[in-house]
Every structure is written in C-alpha cells, then in structure tokens.
C-alpha cells in the first residue's frame, strides 16, 4: 500500500511542480523561494483544516461543520480578546482548541451514541454553529480595531525567517504524520475505513474512534478559528462561509478516498497546496477572477478521475500465474 500511495503523492507533487512551472512562464517571480514560502503561509490554514478533515474522511465519515466551527470559535476568541486584551495568546489558543473540541465532541457524540450518519449530523451542526455565532455576537462584527496587537501579530511574527503561522502548520503536519503512521489510533482510523465490520470484530471500538476523530477535527476547526480571525482581522457570522467544500476539495485532490481507508498526510497537504497555488496564482497571472471557480472545479474533477484510475482494482490476475509457471 505504501509504495502505491507514494506513487500517487509523487504524481500530485509533479502536478504541483508543473503548475508552478506553468505559472512562472507568465509570471517568473512566482517560483521565487520567497514567494513560494508565502504561498505556503497563505495555504497554511487550508492545510491544517484538510488534515483535520482527512482523519474524518478516512473513517468513512465527513465533517461539514468545520467551517462553522471555525467561525464560532473565531468569534469566541475575538470577543474574548476584545473584552480582555490581557489574556495571553497561548491561553487563547488553548481556549480555541477547547471550544473547537466541544463542538467536535457534540458531532462525535451524535455519531457515536445515536448512530446518526455523520453527513446528517454535520449538515445540521453546520447551520447550528454558524447560527450560534450570530446569537453569541448579536450579529455584531469584531474588527481589527478591537483586537489586541498581540492577537493580530502572533501568527505574523517571524521565527527563523518564517512566520509563526507556517510553523504552526509544520507542527500540525508533523503531529498528524506521527498520529497516522506511528500510533494505534492512526491504524484504527485506517482500519475502520477499510472494513468497519472487521474492525468491530477486531476489537476496535468503532463508535469511540469516530468520536475521537470528530474531536480532532473539532480541535483543528477551533485552532483555525483563531488563526483565521487573526489573519483576516475580522470576526463575523460570514467568516469562512462555504469553506467546508474547499476543505473537502483539498482532501479529494490529495487522493483521500471519500469511501474511507485510503489517504495520507502528504496527500492532504499537497491537495491543499494545489488549491492554494491556484487561488494565489490566478490574480497574479492576470486571469479574470471569474475564471477561478471553473478552474478549481475542473481541477477537482480531473483529480478524481486520475485518483480513480489508480484506485481501480486490478482484478485477481489468475492467468499471470500460468505464465510464471510455464
């Protein structure tokens, strides 16, 4: 499986390199290391979100509420910061993680305890969490003026020449890599996606694992709530509206099978980068913004077609044995 997956990721990487090459024929500065670093930073939030979504999709579930969770948690931390600028940022991040965790746990509990399909649960919480943001804030926005300089500055501070936001993304990628390849939880997540019945028989608590997975995606949503708000310096009910589909699109482009069980950290990261590069490059190479939607739509379809080629079962190849013997 590993050789196979590597193969897929290498192709995606090649596609990204080709894309960058293509863009730099029209805008040479795009391939500058400095610019690429910036593209990475610009895509960080999407990458983190895609990783959170990935663990959910791997278990044959889906979390449509991530963007609403992000919106709600973002509003919570923004309002906290506006009211109590003295709260240190690390604590605020912990709060964001905790709030996200609670929202994720609600999804997880409904999926686990009541056995409601995750798409239904999160379709419901998608609107509930965003609505809750409205109720919480009374519809009012929190804008840059009311945020403390630390709140805004934290992710922009450079460490070793790279902004903290990028470092956070790198850290999250590393954590997910360890989770998925080196821990029993990671293996259970794959196993559930590959064969849920067998997982039950194997002694994996499928429900509880799904619960944990939703907690993870919730925490990621919460973390990104803070990152998003401090990046775009406005907290409103409209934050990241419709973004859930971008997150899923990144996963799909990254080769994560919507049927569960197939996908990797590298894939999710590359999928997000691919989308990030497109949205970064279109304005730069002077393609009318009206084309952006159609282009990313075509990219998604193309990615699915190519991934399906790879995934297609090869049959059992009974005859080959004959050839090997004779």
């Amino acid at each position, binding site marked *: 499986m590993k050789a196979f997956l590597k193969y897929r990721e290498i192709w995606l990487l090649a596609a990204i390199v080709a894309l960058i090459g293509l863009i730099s024929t029209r805008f040479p500065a795009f391939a500058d290391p400095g610019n690429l670093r910036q593209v990475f930073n610009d895509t960080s939030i999407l990458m983190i979100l895609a990783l959170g979504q990935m663990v959910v999709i791997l278990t044959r579930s889906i979390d449509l509420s991530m963007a609403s969770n992000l919106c709600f948690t973002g509003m919570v931390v923004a309002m906290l910061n506006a009211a109590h600028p003295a709260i240190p940022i690390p604590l605020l991040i912990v709060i964001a993680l905790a709030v996200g965790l609670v929202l994720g746990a609600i999804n997880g509990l409904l999926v686990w305890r009541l056995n409601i399909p995750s798409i239904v649960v999160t379709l419901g919480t998608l609107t509930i969490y965003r609505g809750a943001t409205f109720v919480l804030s009374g519809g009012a926005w929190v804008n840059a003026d009311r945020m403390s300089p630390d709140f805004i500055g934290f992710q922009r501070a450079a460490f070793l020449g790279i902004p903290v936001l990028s470092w956070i993304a790198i850290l999250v990628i590393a954590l997910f890599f360890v989770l998925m390849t080196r821990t029993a939880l990671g293996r259970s997540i794959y196993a559930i996606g590959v064969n849920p019945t067998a997982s039950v028989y194997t002694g994996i608590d499928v429900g509880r694992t799904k619960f944990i997975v939703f907690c993870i995606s919730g925490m990621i949503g919460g973390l990104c709530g803070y990152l998003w708000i401090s990046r775009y310096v406005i907290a409103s009910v409209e934050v990241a509206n419709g973004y859930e589909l971008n997150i899923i699109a990144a996963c799909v482009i990254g080769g994560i099978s919507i049927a569960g069980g197939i996908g990797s950290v590298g894939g999710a990261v590359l999928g997000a980068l691919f989308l990030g590069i497109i949205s970064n490059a279109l*304005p730069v190479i002077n393609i009318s913004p009206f084309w952006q939607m159609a282009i990313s739509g075509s990219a998604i379809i193309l990615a699915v077609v190519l991934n399906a080629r790879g995934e297609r079962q090869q049959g059992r190849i009974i005859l080959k044995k004959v050839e090997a013997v004779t």
Partner: protein
Amino acid sequence: ENVKIALVVKSLGNGFFDAANKGAQEAAKELGDVDIIYTGPTKATAEAQIEVVNSLIAQKVNAIAISANDADALVPVLKKAMERGITVISWDSGVAKEGRQLHLNPSDTGLIGETIIKLAADYLPEGGDVAILSASSTATNQNSWIEAAKKVLPEKFPKIKLVATVYGDDDSAKSTDEAKGLLKSYPNLKAIIAPTTVGVVAAAQVVTDENLIGKVNVTGLALPSEFKKFIDNGASQAVALWNPIDLGYSAVYLAHDLAVKKEEAKPGATLSIGRVGKVTLDDTNSAAMAPPFQFDKSNIEKFSKIY
C-alpha cells in the same frame, strides 16, 4: 396604531447598517408614531432578501425601506408589496425604477466615483498605478461608482492609471487573497481603492502585513470606527464615507412621509428629510443625501467614536 416601517438591509451584522439603524431609531423617536422593524438576511443574497420582504408583506407593514442585494431580482417582490399598498423606497444600494417609489443615494453617484479616485490622487502628485478592490461583482452601488470613477479618470486625473478591478465579494478572506494578488501582479502599484468597508480593511491589513506602509496607500470607503487603526498606522492616508446614521434617518423619514403624508414621489419633487435637510428627486426618482465626508488623521479619532 403606529406606522410600521421596515428597514431592510443587505445583511445583518454589518457595522455600517447597524449605524443606519441607529439613525432610523432616531427618526422614529422624532416622528413619534413609528415602529421600526430592522431586518435583513444574514447571507447577502437576493433570494434571502426576497423571503424577508415576503414576510414583511404578510405582516402588513406600512413601508419598506430597502438596501438591495440585487437591483433587479427584488423588483417583482417589491412590486407585489406596492400592489398590496405598501410604500417602498430603496436607499444605499438601489432597486431598479419599477421596484420602488424612490431611491435615496447616500451621495451623488458621480461624486462618489470621483471622490474615491481623488482620495488616491491627492497623495500621488506624480501619478501612478492604482487598482480597485470591490465588493461582489453584482453589487449595484459599487458597480455604479466604479463606472463613474472610470468616467472621470481621463479628464480629471490623467496621471492616474487604473490597472485592475478585482472582486473580494465582501468576504475578508477572498478580499485578502485578491489584495495580495494585486500587490504581486503590479509591483508598481501605488494605491488600492476599496469602495467597500470589508474590502478596505482587508487591503489595509495586507499592506500592513507586507510592510508596504508608505509604498502603497489604501483608500476607499470605510467606517471610521473599523478603520481608525489603519489611518493611525499609516497604511491609509484618508478614506471617505457618508454618515450612515444620517442615511438611516433619512430613509425612514422619507418612507414615513410617503406612507403617512401621502407625499408623491415624482421627478423634480423636493422632499424634506428632517434635520438632514431636503432632497430633490431626479428623473429616475433618485435623490442624493449629502456629499461624501473625508476622514484622515485630523478627524478620525472623533468620528470613530460615533460610527
């Protein structure tokens, strides 16, 4: 029985409209017999606004004053409202002529168009490249200002070159991406003009983040309370806006007069808008409230406390 006037906005939660609501309440108090229903969709779409208008019709309100998400799509439902005897006016972002009795522009369209360019030009004595970061591509008012701006460019500001118009959809993330794209694609860009309160904040934040303060000037239409920070840090020299409180006040005042005093809205008519003054309707039954007001270092402190 009080007169029920619905102040319908593009979307709830927007500081600009909240300020307009303040003015509306003020007018209601002044007029005495008015109840204000402040409402609007949370998603800035025409479909959502239509549902809101439908429920207002059912509640048999006396007047609807709407800032529309789409100039044309709301026409049928507003026509229906008028057929059922409801006074309909539009304000801020207008509705096509058939869909309302009158339209109150916050200011003269041509004037706004000129102002947003002038705000950039004032700080560019040598001229240079500027770009516009607008709201959604379907926003009526933004589109007409941009058109007006383009019209005045060649004669009045020959040294200013408008290199691009992009759309941030009044979404801070998209606006940020678009602003970044502008800075990358046009290294010689001297100013970003964002005639929208969301876009202008996003652009100013990008300029701040990329350490381009002093190199790129962000300007456009901004709420002083939201934008003070960027005047203070120098990302922007000056922005303009009309007084949204006055706008809400005037809209309610006009709606009330049409609904209660049976004033007729016809070209050439002059109508009172209370403490703000008087407006005269042009041949499309539109009126302009007041010229845009400019904010810079000298006065932002004061106005940021008001709206």
